[in-house]
């Protein structure tokens, strides 16, 4: 038989001013299994807590009900109290007679009756509580960072600095991400590559970091501290253990294709590094465009001339690193924590028919302009028109292309475009004082350190003409483009003859961000941006313990924010990895394998993939709960018709007992 003690709190006059506390105490004494009841002025005070501890001792209480404020306030306080007296902390129940009673009811009698009912419910529930014990689980003290942009680089370096091993997975042949494509950064006009490349090199050289470039995360199993991850290492066709990155192959390769890194403005070879400062500085072979592959795939029956065998790279490689036998390979690695930093891509402006729908070569995206401005870019920093290579004089910028526009399903602000456009206007003027820039904008959003000053500088010093309004139409008129728009501040249509139009394309989640999120069992928005556990207070954590998010994979962010979030995620990961073991919350579901019929409705509804299949000794396949993954929502309990699953702390028996105290008086 249980021996339950009930402690009713006055909370000063917060409860006692409305609820007749002595009456509640008297009623509690009459309740089944209650052997002791008392009142306190402030139960949460040291005095009040001591009275609970003493009563547990004195009256050999094995369960405790505290009737006081919301359990959301002091449940943990009182768990510690009863634990200090030697009880299992889960043998406690709170009756909420403040927030749910004395604070919302003024009739003393009614409030007292309700308080008694709430105490009675808590007594009935606590009688069915069981002692629960958190499980201790081990952990792998390694971190996986997904995405090798500036965010992932920062996270990897910070984790590695604490002595933990890090694997950095990047799906492109080089780390660097979007930042590597930029020319300068706002508002300081630092050279992007100059500040990024040292970090890229640090990643490559750090003894604690393993860089897996040209690789992708395919499958994630396990749970916090104990993830098992399948990583696809795409075949590079080059043995990087032999290759010295001398560059002979990519200088001689005759297979020329449009460069992804230069966004179609330049060319690369079939065996390539994406850009000169790539890390690793060793090439991969793009099989689709490799001449030897074309030769191998050539089918005589289709006629035509047999292509040359090529294999030039193989012939000239001084270290014999070309390996035609290489295959895609899946490696499985164990990690304790995962940081997701998959970044963004830019909006595809071809859906905007009024801007030419991608048909005009001289209507380019801002990221393309970055490549044109970059000294390492396809034009070596000369800003010329893609159509005829002429130097530009009149440049029109259009803001909010794929941002703040419901029509294209992108109602959100991409946050960085106002600033990078200001940067472009300033830089173009610096390149050539004869350039005139026009900027069509909705609002100039310049919230940030030195941002407003920077945006003003574009207008005041660089003479960019800012026109508030949208562009309605762009069309090719001879060699130039005509830009029709509205200056909504004076309510007049505007017509500008431009030789280059730059569209400030917004930020979108990177390709397959949703698939990866599903693999990791973390949430994502309808725009495929990842969702943090709490937007204010847990900005780098997720609903899945041990998985952290950072950078622009979560939403539009600029470089300093990405770096800060990369570091933040690193700290959270390190805080996890520096523990010797983890404790799991015992308020999880539990399966009675005798009752389970193996319909696996529970498995279908579980949002956390916590239901596993287990074969019993009598060869039945039944559910079992992975308590490390279970978050205690109880969805499985309701899905289970035979009642084989129960939820600790909120068992069906407990809830039913509570209900029955109310209806069977």
């Amino acid at each position, binding site marked *: 038989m249980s021996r339950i003690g009930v402690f009713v709190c006055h909370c000063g006059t917060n409860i006692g001013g409305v609820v007749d506390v002595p009456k509640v105490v008297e009623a509690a004494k009459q309740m089944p299994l209650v052997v002791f009841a008392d009142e306190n002025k402030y139960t949460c005070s040291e005095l009040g807590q001591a009275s609970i501890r003493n009563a547990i001792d004195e009256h050999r209480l094995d369960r405790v009900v505290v009737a006081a404020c919301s359990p959301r306030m002091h449940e943990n306080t009182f768990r510690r109290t009863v634990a200090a007296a030697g009880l299992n902390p889960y043998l406690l129940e709170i009756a909420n007679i403040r927030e749910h009673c004395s604070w919302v009811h003024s009739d003393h009698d009614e409030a007292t009756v309700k308080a008694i009912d709430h105490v009675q419910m808590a007594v009935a529930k606590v009688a069915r509580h069981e002692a629960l014990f958190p499980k201790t689980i081990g952990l792998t003290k390694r971190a996986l960072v997904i995405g090798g942009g500036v965010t992932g680089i920062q996270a990897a370096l910070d984790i590695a600095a604490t002595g933990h091993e890090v694997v950095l997975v990047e799906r492109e042949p080089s780390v660097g991400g979007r930042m590597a494509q930029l020319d300068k950064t706002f508002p300081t006009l630092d050279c992007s590559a100059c500040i990024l490349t040292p970090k890229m090199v640090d990643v490559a050289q750090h003894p604690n970091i393993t860089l897996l470039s040209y690789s992708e995360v395919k499958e994630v199993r396990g749970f916090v501290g104990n993830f098992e991850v399948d990583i696809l290492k795409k075949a590079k066709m080059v043995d990087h253990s032999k290759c010295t990155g001398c560059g002979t192959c990519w200088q001689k390769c005759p297979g020329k294709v449009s460069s992804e890194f230069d966004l179609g403005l330049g060319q690369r070879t079939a065996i390539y590094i994406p850009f000169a400062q790539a890390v690793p500085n060793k090439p991969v072979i793009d099989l689709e465009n490799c001449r030897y592959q074309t030769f191998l795939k050539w089918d005589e029956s289709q006629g035509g001339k047999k292509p040359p065998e090529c294999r030039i790279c193989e012939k000239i490689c001084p270290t014999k690193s070309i390996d035609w036998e290489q295959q895609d390979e899946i490696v499985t690695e164990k990690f304790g924590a995962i940081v997701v930093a998959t970044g963004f891509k830019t909006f595809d402006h071809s859906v905007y028919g009024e801007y030419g729908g991608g048909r005009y070569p001289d209507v380019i995206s801002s990221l393309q302009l970055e490549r044109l401005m970059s000294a390492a870019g396809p034009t070596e920093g000369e800003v010329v028109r893609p159509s005829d290579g002429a130097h530009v004089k009149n440049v029109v910028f259009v803001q909010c292309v794929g941002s703040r526009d419901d029509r294209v399903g992108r109602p959100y602000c991409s946050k960085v475009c106002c600033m990078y456009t200001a940067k472009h206007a300033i830089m173009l003027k610096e390149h050539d004082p004869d350039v005139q820039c026009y900027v069509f904008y909705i609002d100039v959003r310049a919230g940030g350190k030195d941002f407003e000053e920077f945006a003003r500088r574009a207008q005041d010093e660089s003479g960019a003409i800012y026109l508030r309004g949208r562009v309605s139409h762009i069309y090719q008129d001879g060699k130039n483009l005509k830009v029709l728009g509205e200056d909504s501040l004076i309510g007049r249509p505007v017509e500008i003859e431009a030789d280059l139009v730059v569209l400030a394309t917004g930020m979108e989640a990177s390709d397959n961000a949703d698939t990866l999120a599903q693999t990791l069992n973390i949430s994502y928005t309808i725009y495929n941006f990842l969702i943090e556990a709490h937007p204010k207070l847990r900005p780098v954590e997720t609903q899945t313990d041990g998985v952290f998010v950072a950078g622009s994979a979560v939403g539009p962010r600029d470089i300093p924010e990405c770096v800060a979030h990369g570091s933040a995620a690193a700290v959270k990961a390190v805080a996890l990895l520096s523990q010797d073991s983890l404790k799991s919350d015992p308020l999880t579901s539990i399966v009675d394998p005798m009752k389970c019929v193996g319909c696996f409705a529970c498995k279908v509804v579980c949002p956390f993939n916590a239901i596993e299949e287990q074969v019993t000794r009598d060869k039945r396949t039944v559910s079992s709960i992975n308590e490390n993954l279970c978050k205690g929502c109880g969805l499985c309990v309701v*899905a289970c018709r035979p009642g084989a699953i129960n939820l600790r702390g909120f068992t069906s028996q407990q809830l039913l007992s509570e209900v029955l105290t109310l209806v069977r008086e």
Partner: protein
Amino acid sequence: MASDFTQQIREKARELLEDGTVECVIGYETGSDGISARPAFIYNAADVERLVFDNTCTHNLVKYLLNKKAKSTAVVVKGCDSRALNLLLSERQIERDKAFVVGVVCPGIVESRWNERSEQLQKRCDWCRQHTPVVSDFMVGDPVTEQPPADFADVAEEEAKTAEERAAFWQQQAERCIRCYACRQACPGCYCTDCFAESLDPEWVGIRIAPAESQMWNTIRAFHLAGRCISCNECERVCPVNLPLSLLNRKLEQKVLELFDYRAGMSEDAPAPLITFKKDEKLGIAE
């Protein structure tokens, strides 16, 4: 037609038993009253002549596949029965590769009982929209064009009453229920080894035979079949006190169709409506 069906079933059964495809054929044979069919379990090819198919073949034989220890078994299914097969496949209660399904395009089943057979079609056959089995390995009869959606006149009639009248009606029914659980035993969707009705802790249904407890049983029985009931109406047929159980099942069937556009057992893959959801659906709940 019936004799032709019988012949086809016998031939197939013989073939399956002789070539060892299955160990047992579950079909129908004529009962000892010489009139109505009853389930038959044929293990030897020599016995296939016992098998018949006629319009008294009411039982849903799929229920017999729930024996997980059985080896390969052939089973004769009508349209409605075949939906039970999908239900049980999706809930992993039977293994597809151990079941050989002899589908029969159902001619409609008549009311019959011991020594009595009317030509009156059963209620479920009026409602039926699936005469052709939805899953089969061998089909007896030619697939038919199914009728347009059934109306739910019986449900509507009940709904026309006031809440008070409805409460009184179900109260009366609960008073008659003897909780023999025949409805459960006949139902292909009721296969739990431990039923909530017999759980003592938590005691959902009190052990006394009292209207409130019977009401609890009948309500939850129906709800546990929400989106799973395949409308074979065997529960109502076997009820010894003739409780109108189909009303509850059909009320839910109607709602499931209306809210989720779902009919149970039509495919093995479509998740039952209560274990899936759509984020943006409007169900009249807190909107």
